[in-house]
């Protein structure tokens, strides 16, 4: 299931553009780098809630951490285990 979360998130971020191989995906800020724009972020978050049956708190949504691929993966995984 964990692989599933990572794959789902990385696939989603690359829907429009492939992330170049020399970039460390886990530390990538996918909003600052334009892979998901600020309008798309809302949609992304609710898609994740729907896909993995989790919910994010308002504070989590406001935190800049949620825009870092690795942090987002860890957050979703932790919610699934909780």
């Amino acid at each position: 299931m964990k692989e599933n979360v990572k794959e789902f998130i990385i696939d989603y971020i690359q829907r429009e553009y492939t992330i170049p191989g020399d970039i460390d995906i886990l530390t990538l800020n996918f909003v600052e780098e334009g892979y998901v724009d600020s309008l798309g972020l809302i949609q992304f978050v609710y898609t994740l809630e729907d896909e993995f049956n989790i919910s994010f708190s308002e504070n989590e949504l406001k935190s800049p951490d949620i825009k870092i691929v690795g942090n987002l993966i860890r957050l979703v995984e932790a919610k699934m285990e909780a």
Partner: protein
Amino acid sequence: MRSRLASLFYENAQALPDKEAIWCDGQSVTYREMANLVSRYSNLLLSLGAAYGDHIAIPMNNSIESAALFFSAADLGVCVVPLNPSLPLEAIRAAMTAGDVKHVIARKAFFSECDKSGGLDIPGFAICLDQDYPNTFPFSKLSEMPAQRPELDYDITGSESLILTMTSGSTGTPKPIDISQDNKYDRCAAHIRVYRLTRQDRIIAATPLYHTLAERLVILPLILGASSVLLPRFTPAIWLKCVAEQKPTFTIAVSAQLAQILELLKKPDAPSITSFRTIVSSSALLEASVKYELIELLQCEFHEMYGASEVSTVTDICFQEARDKQNSVGKPFDEAKIKILRDESESDFDTECAPGEIGEIAVRTKLLCKGYYRQEAMMKAAMFHDYFRTGDLGYMDQDGYLYFSGRKKELIITGAVNVYPHDIDTVIARLPEVEECAAFSYPDDRLGEVVALAIVPKEDHEINLRALRTYCARNLADFQQPHKIFLVDRLPRNTMGKLQRTAILSYLREAGLDG
């Protein structure tokens, strides 16, 4: 007879083989390499069975390959239907039906999403751009194709549709704006003349290629023999870094982008940008303070333009040259004439407003699109004789300068993207707990406007906001997502019962609901 657009490009490739044709996302391609790419793309399409007049849909990203596709399409006389990749599948399917699409070029994510919901029903071929995917041809086959421009046994007259640009109609039906090869050429030629563009120019496109603006900014330099700088994705930081490195000399940017860029430019560690000769702001009026600060920081000619996808650019103003007309969007291009129509006047007489009087901006222009594809009635309804009704309100002054006053159409423009509120209403109204609803424009510092939604719940029903947002994420495109949701007990209507969409915000504020 071959395509004029494609031939101009190939002539430049022959004359300037080693010159940079296009840069995108760290990759630079010379004219020779670009010509080879275009030819290979054409040969790939032909080998898969593309025929004259076929329509090819592509959920399009900004890439060198996307730019090449426009020239292959022109050369073969086929039509590209660029789609916003963030649209929900239902909207993409509707757009493909409206655009009479035969073939599809897309990324794996698109095909995979289609397969999860009933597959993709198209009569022609499918090409997968990024990976192998069942029942699609891999784009990687391109490298095996000959790099020679294919011979054709038919003529290209220029009247062929080159691009169908999808906008959503107010009824939710996609409205494909049909732009012919000649339209595209004439539009490029007009911009080359007005902005005195030459082969020395480096022209940056920073909006998505499924919009007419970026299409123009990529096709134009390649038929001129100049260089194109194509921003893969827009964030102010990516734009600034790209501009500092690639040193573009000209751009047409959307005003929401310029406002964001200015914020970054004012920071002490911002790079100094000195390469621009001219910047044109489009889409919505730029605040005067933003305009003056940009002029100060970028030290270049600063223009503002007014136009629409159906009519291309209509007016232009250079602020350094027309200091006493600072609130105007300028004078018409030579190709265009403007009439300001008095509201609700359908007669042939006395329909034009006097100078200073606000009415609907209507445009007669040689740059008018072919029409709305297979929706002649819709195009006819948009015309007043040979003038296209823009749905915008404005007035002319005594000197022939146009002033923009607002919109007649119910439209939300968020970061330069047009959002038709009715499309959102239709999706939300399907929910059983919703009595009625209305999407409306909400002011936003960064994007100009964002989408807000007012909902009247059904009696004895509760709206679960989280479930509602999930529903929106699934069924609406990213630019349609409501940023604010208000639950109300009624919507403002006039005495005839017609929804007063533009009055919703003041209604909410008076009721103390917008805190």
